[in-house]
């Protein structure tokens, strides 16, 4: 993993790769295959590029880690001579400010903009303005409506919910009493994950949902919610927890009450993974990989180099189970205590994702 290993071959690899990419770009240009260019790309921008990262809100740990992968990727691309500068903005949760930031990026004539949208609609016009200017726009995690972007990158929240429900149902033999712990109400990710779980739950009618909770994606509120549920329910066979550090809160609640741990799903929060191992329980986790940020920068630069990139890049959900958890925990100290231990990534993975149609 190039972000954290001091692997001398990584930079060499990327440099070789960059050379190849540049050659390919030249080939594409000389062959005059303008039609192969990605969306928004006009071919008039030359390396090294300036990249703008228009964040909606930089404070949450997940965002900080994501920004870390973006900065690391930019360093790699700088070494390869493809990027010269990274401009970072934080709209402090205000979609209107994010519009202003993206407008400023257009004014500053950046070559690429990477964005997590603060509103699915509000950025449409300013983003299509940027697209008209030949700026490579890569949108990830929280997506915009307009299709006038170079690429959109995300995982599938529905599959997340389905995968978690499937694993829990298998653990319990399709029978038992479970509690569903969701993220905040009215948030599309939280809704979509829950919706994805429903067909699996329908297919296993003996899996009874005792109750559901909605909390922030933090351990503390989840622990509080689970503690009161434990008092009310002497028999719980499993916990279907759908993201963040909610699972960690649930495990701590079980622990405090002296209740026996039950199978639990979750996300790659370091807190959860460590408790999972420590308590020796049965667990399953997936993740919204932080390196979606790095992938977005890489995709934007590839598009600027004249490579055709897919308009939508669906990133398969990496899964953590009892067989792989040790490999994640081995790297735990490289991540913040309240952070997310994301899966390894490298240039080869990115190229594979970009090659899919």
């Amino acid at each position, binding site marked *: 993993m190039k972000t954290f290993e001091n692997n001398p071959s990584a930079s060499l690899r990327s440099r070789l790769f960059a050379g190849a990419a540049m050659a390919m770009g030249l080939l594409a240009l000389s062959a005059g295959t303008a039609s192969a260019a990605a969306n928004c790309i006009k071919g008039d921008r030359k390396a090294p590029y300036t990249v703008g990262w228009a964040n909606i809100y930089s404070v949450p740990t997940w965002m900080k880690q994501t920004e870390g992968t973006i900065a690391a990727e930019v360093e790699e691309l700088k070494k390869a001579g493809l990027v010269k500068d990274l401009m970072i903005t934080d709209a402090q949760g205000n979609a209107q400010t994010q519009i202003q930031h993206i407008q400023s990026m257009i004014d500053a004539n950046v070559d690429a903009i990477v964005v997590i949208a603060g509103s*699915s609609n509000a950025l449409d016009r300013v983003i299509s303005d940027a697209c008209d200017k030949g700026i490579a726009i890569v949108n990830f995690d929280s997506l915009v409506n307009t299709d006038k972007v170079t690429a959109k990158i995300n995982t599938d929240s529905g599959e997340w919910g389905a995968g978690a429900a499937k694993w829990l149902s298998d653990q319990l033999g399709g029978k038992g009493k479970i509690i569903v712990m969701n993220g905040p109400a009215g948030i599309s990710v939280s809704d979509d994950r829950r919706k994805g779980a429903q067909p699996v739950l329908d297919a296993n009618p003996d899996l009874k949902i005792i109750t559901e909770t909605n909390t922030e994606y933090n351990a503390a509120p989840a622990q509080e919610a689970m503690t009161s549920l434990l008092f009310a329910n002497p028999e719980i066979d499993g916990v279907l927890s759908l993201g963040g550090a909610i699972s960690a809160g649930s495990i701590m609640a079980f622990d405090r009450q002296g209740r026996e741990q039950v199978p639990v799903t979750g996300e790659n929060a370091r807190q959860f993974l460590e408790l999972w191992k420590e308590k020796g329980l049965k667990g399953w986790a997936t993740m919204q990989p932080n390196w979606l940020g790095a992938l977005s920068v890489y995709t934007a630069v590839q598009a600027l180099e004249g490579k055709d990139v897919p308009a939508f890049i669906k990133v398969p959900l990496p899964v953590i189970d009892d067989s792989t958890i040790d490999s994640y925990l081995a790297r735990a100290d490289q991540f913040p205590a309240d952070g997310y231990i994301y899966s390894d990534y490298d240039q080869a993975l990115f190229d594979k994702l970009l090659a899919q149609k």
Partner: protein
Amino acid sequence: MSAVSSSGWLYGAIQRRRNRGLGGLYLVVAAFLILYAVLFPGILSVGGFSKFTQNWFPLALVTMAQALLMLNGGITLAIGPLVSLGAVIAATTMEGVFGVPGGIVAVAFTGLAIGAVIGAIVAHLRLPAIIVTLAGSFIITGVALILLPRPGGFIPDWLSNMLAGHTPVAFLLLVVVLLAWKAFLATPLGLGIYAAGDNPVGAFRSGVPVERAKIVAFALSGLLAALAGLFVAAQTGSGDPVIGTPFTLNSIAAAVLGGVGFLGGKGTMRGAICGSLLLSVMINVMFFLGFPPVAQYIAQGLIIVGAVAVPELLKSWRAKR
């Protein structure tokens, strides 16, 4: 600025006195505008100027909406939700039989009506404006979410391009609104808003219809906030039921930055407008200076404190001389 052409000696003297407290703010804003133009000369082109003023325009409108009430001795926490509701109504009605004119009328009427109702409750039931508008903000947010549960709706492209395209229409509209405010201040009712804010008892004894002035102030404030929402809808090309939320706090910040006091009667609309301009230009200047986000949080706070402190320091320096 202070040398008003005609209107006699008294008017000029009063304007000079009112402008004096703002001298420091004017300096700070001018410095930021010059810095911005140096960093990004494109602002001096028609396109650049248009885009910049478009991003400022809704904040300027809601700051006026807030300042109007603060001058009257009130305050409103319903600005953000009204912006959202204005945007939602615009995005849901413009498809209807009455088209764009119908949508504009609907937005304007809603803003006026909600403002008037809140104003009537505050004036006649003698309830604190901060509580009534807080309650109102929940109700308005709820209504906006019912009308449009998730971002969407429709604004015709030509309207978006006219209001928020590559021409300074938004800026011209702001000038028109400011001239209208100036004209309104020349009427007895307009003056009454100030007078009732400064000294309600005195104003009442001098024959100012204090309660009516309050209701009118709330209604106009609601109108401005809803129209800001209409503009946001045009600018983004759609409605979003929660897009206005940050405007509440920003409108108060801009008004206070512009020297409008919380206790009523103190402050000027031009000061408030300058305050909103500073908040808006600050974001762009920090971007072009390449401040990292963490530094932006700190710089933002320092600039706001500085902009309030500079006029005070100038005042005490002048007094000492």
